C-alpha cells in the first residue's frame, strides 16, 4: 500500500504540492488528471524518491521513502516507473535494455536476466524485437519497451507519467492496450494521464489535481458525471 | 624547503622588453588570423563549389594543416623551403606557418558554418527578388559568421599560443625573447614563469574582448 500524508513539495519558492493526502491500496488502479503544471509528475517523482520533499511522508508498504535510513534503490525496485519520454537506452538492444537492471541491480545471472527480459518483452508484444536497437523501434514500441523494462524488476506498483502523451495518435492505442492488460492482471497502478477514456474505463478511482492540491478523488462515474468541484467540471469540459 | 634562490629582479628589469615582445606576438597572431580568415573562407568555398585540381589543392592545404604538427609546418617554411633556395626571415616563417595552419582549421569551421545555414534561407531570399550576391552577403554570410564566431575566437587563442613556436625558429616574439634573456641570465624558471603569466593575461583579454564584441554584434 502507498500512503501519502500531508505531502508538501517546493521547487525553490514555488509551492508545487500543497499538502496531499492519498492512499492507494494493493490492486487498485488510480488515474491522476489535471491541467499542465498542477504537480502530477512531481507527485510521482516524490513517490519513488526521485525528488526530495519538504514536509509530509510517503510510505510504501510500511517504509518511509524519504526517511534517512531508507535504502532507496531497494525500494525503487518495488516501484516501476514509465515516463512520457520513453528514455530507452540507445546503446543497448531491446533485450539488453530490459535485462540490464535485473542483472546489475538485482544481481541476477546473465542468463536469468535475459530470460526474464525475453519473457517481459513477449508480454508487451515485442517478442519479435529482442535483438533490435531502440532507434529501429516506433515510439509506441519504445514505450512498451520501457514498460517491459520496468516490469522486469517485478515491481509491486507501476507509476505511469503520461505514458502516451509524446506518441503519435495512431500509436497511443497499443500502449493503452498494454496498460489495460496490466490493470486486468491485478497490477497496482498510478497513471497520470490525459486519456480520459482510459481513466474512465480502467481506473478504480480518479484523482483531479489543481494547482498543487488534490481537489477531488472518487470513482470514475462520480468524477466524470457528478463532479463536486467547479474546477473539475471546468477542466473536464475543456478536455472533451 | 628549497635550496634554490628565486631572483626576480632581472626579469623585472627586462619586463619592458618582454612586453614589447608580447606585442610582437599579438601582432603576428592577429596578422595570421586576418590572412587565415580570408584564405580559409576561400578554401571553404573552393571545396564546396569547385571541382578538379584547384579543389584538390585546397583539400591538400586543409588536410595538411590539420593533420601535421604546427611545429612541422613552421620547420617546413623554415628549412623546407631552404631546399629551393628560399630563405624566409624568422618573422616570415612564423607568419607563414601560422597563416597556413589557421587557414586550414578555419576552412573547416567555415564549411561547417555554411552547411548549418539551410538552403531554404538562400531560396527564400531569392524568392524575395534578391540577387545571388545580395542573398549571400546579406542573408547567408551573416548567419555563417555568427556560427563561426566562437570557433574564430578559439582559433585566435590558438594562434597566440602557437606563435610561441617562434622560439624554435629563432623568432624573438614573447617566447623567443624570453629564451634569449633566460639563457643569458640562467634565471630560466623566473623568466618563463613571468612569460606564462603574460600569455595567460593575453588569452584572457582576447576572450573578454570577444565576449564583449559578441554582445554588441549579436543582438538577436
Amino acid at each position, binding site marked *: 500500500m502507498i500512503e501519502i500524508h500531508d505531502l508538501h513539495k517546493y521547487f525553490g519558492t514555488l509551492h508545487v504540492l500543497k499538502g496531499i493526502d492519498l492512499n492507494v491500496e494493493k490492486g487498485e488502479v488510480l488515474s491522476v488528471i489535471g491541467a499542465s503544471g498542477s504537480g502530477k509528475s512531481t507527485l510521482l517523482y516524490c513517490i519513488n524518491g526521485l525528488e526530495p520533499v519538504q514536509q509530509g511522508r510517503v510510505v510504501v508498504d510500511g517504509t518511509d521513502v524519504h526517511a534517512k535510513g531508507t535504502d532507496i534503490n531497494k525500494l525503487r525496485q518495488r516501484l516501476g516507473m514509465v515516463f512520457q519520454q520513453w528514455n530507452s537506452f540507445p546503446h543497448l538492444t531491446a533485450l539488453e535494455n530490459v535485462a540490464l537492471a535485473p542483472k546489475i541491480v538485482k544481481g541476477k545471472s546473465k542468463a536469468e536476466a535475459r530470460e526474464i527480459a525475453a519473457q517481459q518483452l513477449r508480454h508487451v508484444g515485442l517478442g519479435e524485437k529482442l535483438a533490435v536497437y531502440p532507434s529501429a523501434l516506433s515510439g509506441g514500441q519504445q514505450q512498451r519497451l520501457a514498460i517491459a523494462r520496468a516490469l522486469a524488476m517485478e515491481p509491486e506498483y507501476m507509476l505511469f507519467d503520461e505514458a502516451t502523451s509524446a506518441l503519435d495518435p495512431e500509436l497511443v492505442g497499443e500502449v493503452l492496450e498494454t496498460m489495460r492488460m496490466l490493470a486486468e492482471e491485478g497490477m497496482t497502478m498510478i497513471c497520470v494521464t490525459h486519456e480520459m477514456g482510459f481513466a474512465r474505463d480502467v481506473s478504480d478511482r480518479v484523482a483531479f489535481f489543481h494547482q498543487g492540491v488534490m481537489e477531488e478523488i472518487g470513482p470514475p462515474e462520480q468524477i466524470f458525471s457528478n463532479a463536486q468541484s467547479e474546477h473539475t467540471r471546468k477542466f473536464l469540459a475543456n478536455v472533451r | 624547503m628549497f635550496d634554490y634562490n628565486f631572483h626576480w629582479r632581472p626579469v623585472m628589469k627586462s619586463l619592458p622588453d618582454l612586453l614589447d615582445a608580447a606585442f610582437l606576438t599579438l601582432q603576428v597572431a592577429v596578422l595570421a588570423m586576418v590572412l587565415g580568415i580570408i584564405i580559409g573562407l576561400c578554401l571553404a568555398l573552393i571545396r564546396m563549389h569547385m571541382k578538379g585540381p584547384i579543389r584538390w589543392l585546397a583539400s591538400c592545404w586543409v588536410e595538411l594543416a590539420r593533420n601535421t604538427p604546427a611545429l612541422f609546418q613552421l620547420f617546413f617554411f623554415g*628549412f623546407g623551403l631552404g631546399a629551393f633556395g628560399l630563405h624566409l626571415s624568422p618573422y616570415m616563417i612564423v607568419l607563414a606557418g601560422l597563416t597556413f595552419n589557421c587557414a586550414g582549421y578555419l576552412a573547416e569551421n567555415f564549411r561547417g558554418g555554411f552547411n548549418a545555414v539551410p538552403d531554404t534561407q538562400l531560396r527564400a531570399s531569392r524568392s524575395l527578388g534578391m540577387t545571388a550576391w545580395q542573398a549571400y552577403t546579406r542573408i547567408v554570410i551573416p548567419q555563417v559568421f555568427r556560427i563561426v564566431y566562437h570557433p574564430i575566437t578559439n582559433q585566435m587563442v590558438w594562434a597566440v599560443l602557437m606563435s610561441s*613556436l617562434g622560439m624554435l625558429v629563432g623568432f624573438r616574439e614573447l617566447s623567443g625573447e624570453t629564451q634569449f634573456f633566460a639563457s643569458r641570465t640562467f634565471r630560466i624558471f623566473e623568466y618563463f614563469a613571468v612569460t606564462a603569466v603574460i600569455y595567460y593575461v593575453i588569452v584572457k583579454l582576447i576572450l573578454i574582448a570577444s565576449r564583449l564584441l559578441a554582445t554588441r554584434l549579436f543582438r538577436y
Partner: protein
Amino acid sequence: MEPTISFFSGFTPNDLLFLGEAALRTLWISVLSITIGTALGVLFGWVLYEGKLAATLTVAPVLDIFRSVPLIIQLVLFYNFAPIVGLNLDPFASGVVILTIYTASLVANVARGGIEAVETPMRRAARSLGMTYWQDLRYVVFPIGGRAVFPAWVGVALGVMKDSALVSVLGYVELLKASQILITRTQEPFLILTIAGAFYFALSYPISRYAASLERKWAQ
C-alpha cells in the same frame, strides 16, 4: 648547398632507421600521456559536472591555466621547476607529466560535455529502475555520453599526438627533433621533412576521417 663540404653525408638507410626509432618515441610518449591524461580528464570532467563548489573553484581555474599557456612554456617551466623542488626528471618524464596534465585539461571539458549530453529524464529512468548513482554513471551515462563526445575526444588525442613534437624543446629526440638533427647533418631538409610529415599525416588523417564518419553515422 655546397657539395664541396664533404662533412655532410647524404641521407642513408641508417638514417631512416633513426627516424623510425624517433617515430616510435613520438608514439610512445603520446600513447602514455593520452591514456593517463584521459583517465584523469574524465575524473576532472565529472568533478566539474557535479560542480561541488570547492572543486569547481580549485579544479576549473587550474585546468584553465593549462589551456591558456603555450605548451612549450609549460614544458620549459616544469622541466626547470622540478629540480627546484628536488625532483630529478629526465626530458621524457617531464614531457609525460606535462602532456598528461595538458591532455587532462582538454579532456575534462570534453568529458563534462559528455555527461551533460545525457539528459535528466534518461538518468531518472535509470534511477527509477533502482540503479545506484554509480551504476547509472557506469551503465548509462558513460556509454551514451562517451559516444556523444567520442569524435571530440579523438580530436583532442590527435592534437596531443601532434603537440608531443614540442617535447623536443627539452632535448627528447622524438620524430621532429630527429628530423632536425638529420637535416643539420645531411642538408636534405625537403626529403627528411617529407618523411616526418608523412608519418604524422598517415597517423592522423585516417583516424580523424574515421572519427568524422562515426560522428555522421551516430548523428542519424
